[in-house]
């Protein structure tokens, strides 16, 4: 007897979608590769922060106050003498942790709700969708502020509450994809050989909806980075980590002194990362929807 591999659900679906020869050729398309660059840079910074960063990001007084970009401080310093380049590097890590963490939480919840609602339909679908609608109506940004104020502004809290508020968008996509796959004959065929519902959902339907989930995940990530930076900008960021939003907030207080570097560099990094994730999401959506 050939032992069952749990990898089944991932292995021959997600990875095979990405590595499928047809898709690989499309992925080499420059339209996809160009936006990949800023994101790769962010990823690089995030992983190798300790090796690249010249100074500890939050340490004050490593340079003179508000000095413009120089060889010692590639992006200048802020008004307490911290190196901005280091902040940008470590900020990448924060951005990535938040975006991936939020994305995974949202994905997990969205999959469960979307698959169940789409597969079973009827009353369950109705109830779950009403539930989803209610969640969608919560003003996310303000609510996150409230939660961080009440529970403390740590990164972990932010990831949890943002994940709990972002799943509805993905859930809708999962559900609509489930609805369309459910009608395909191989799903009926699976029932005809006696597959259980759970089995059908995870072995037949889920592997076929990955192509639509990946772009949604990327867009989710970009939204998370945007929110995190906004939260940090108004002062509710995690005090122990560097964040692009925080750096920008510091910079906003010293704009009058003409310190343009504090606003330009972190902001540019933030903008380009978000832009690249959005572009990737858009492009992948076009590419993968053609290959189904």
């Amino acid at each position, binding site marked *: 007897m050939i032992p069952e591999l749990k990898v089944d659900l991932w292995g021959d679906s997600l990875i095979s979608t990405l590595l499928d020869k047809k898709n690989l050729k499309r992925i080499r398309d420059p339209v996809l590769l160009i936006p990949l660059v800023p994101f790769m840079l962010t990823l690089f910074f995030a992983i190798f922060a300790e090796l690249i960063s010249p100074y500890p990001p939050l340490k004050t007084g490593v340079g003179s106050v508000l000095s413009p970009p120089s060889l010692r401080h590639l992006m200048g310093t802020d008004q307490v003498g911290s190196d901005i380049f280091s902040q940008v590097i470590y900020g990448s890590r924060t951005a990535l942790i938040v975006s991936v963490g939020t994305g995974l939480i949202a994905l997990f919840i969205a999959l469960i709700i979307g698959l169940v609602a789409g597969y079973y339909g009827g009353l369950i679908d109705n109830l779950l969708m009403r539930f989803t609608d209610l969640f969608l*109506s919560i003003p996310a940004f303000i609510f996150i502020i409230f939660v961080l104020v009440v529970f403390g502004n740590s990164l972990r809290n932010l990831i949890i509450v943002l994940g709990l508020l972002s799943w509805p968008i993905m859930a809708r996509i999962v559900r609509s994809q489930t609805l369309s796959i459910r009608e395909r004959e191989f799903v009926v065929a699976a029932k005809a050989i006696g597959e259980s519902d759970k089995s059908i959902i995870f072995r037949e339907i889920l592997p076929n909806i990955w192509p639509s989930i990946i772009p949604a995940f990327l867009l989710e990530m970009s939204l998370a980075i945007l929110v995190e930076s906004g939260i940090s900008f108004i002062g509710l960021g995690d005090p122990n980590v560097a964040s692009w939003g925080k750096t920008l907030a510091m910079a906003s207080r010293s704009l009058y002194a003409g310190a343009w570097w504090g*606003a330009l560099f972190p902001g540019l990094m933030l903008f380009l990362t978000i832009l690249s994730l959005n572009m990737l999401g858009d492009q992948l959506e076009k590419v993968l929807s053609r290959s189904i």
Partner: protein
Amino acid sequence: MGLSKFLLYVLQRLFFSITIIIMIMILIFILINVAHGDPAELLAGEAASPQYIETIRKAYGLDKPPLERMIIYIYNLLKGDWGYSITYQAPVIIVILQRLPQTLLLVGVSLIIAIFIGIGVGIISASKPNSLLDMTLNTLILGAYSLPVFWLGLILIMILSLQIPLFPTGGIIDVSVAISGNIIDKILNILWHMVLPIFTLSIIYMATYARVTRSVVMDVMKSNFIKAAIARGVPYKRILYVYALKNALIPVIAVAGAQFGLVVAGAVLTETVYSWPGIGTLLVQAVNYRDYPLVIGVLILVGISVAISNFVADLLMARIDPRIKSRLMG
């Protein structure tokens, strides 16, 4: 349209909106109580004396069982008693209402501009799909969509206020004009202060609407109805602007209504960057001073506005969206 069915729909949507508001209030209540620390201390503020905390506890009935507390709390909220702001030493609801007009001004004008320009750009982009114009516009729209609103604000201030002193760096009105100007001067001055914040906000809002419009119009243009009209000889431009516009309006309103959270977030951040004295800056200030009743008050206000905007959007949709219309007509 069947009047009774329409009324039924209105009631349905009203019920839904009220449910949202109540649900948010319940959520707030639960979270306050689940958080570490004594809710009475939370509401009384950090520098409160033990007697004040006791007063708060009695006032909010915090010594009573949870369910009763929740009902009292929600009842108070609905009555208009939103607590007392520590930093302003005034009822929360008064403080909020004082700041509301400035935010409404900012957000209202920005939304209107954003909807018009957004739909316009979306239609232009979709009119020649995949042309150079379309690709350029699409990239710009995507760029605007990815822009962090506060960064845009900072850059604009840097360039247009500091480098070239064209616009003020913040605030709503110059103190000098506020004191000694006549009404025309005051209005002009405020308008001058409004330019940058509105420009910033509009760009961010517009990006979403343009994206949605473009995708909807591109889909509509592929439909058989349009192809038939073109074959009949109806001028392309007319098709575009009349029919495409009607179709674009529907999802844009849907998005505008449903994604009110984005509108609010944008407002908060823009006000913060430009020091615009509205609800956004009020919130940030309350957060930094740990004035919890005020924070909660703003949250409830936002919750109510979300419910209202959803409701209004739903009603508008019922009037224009043919699918819903036909469902209602049974």
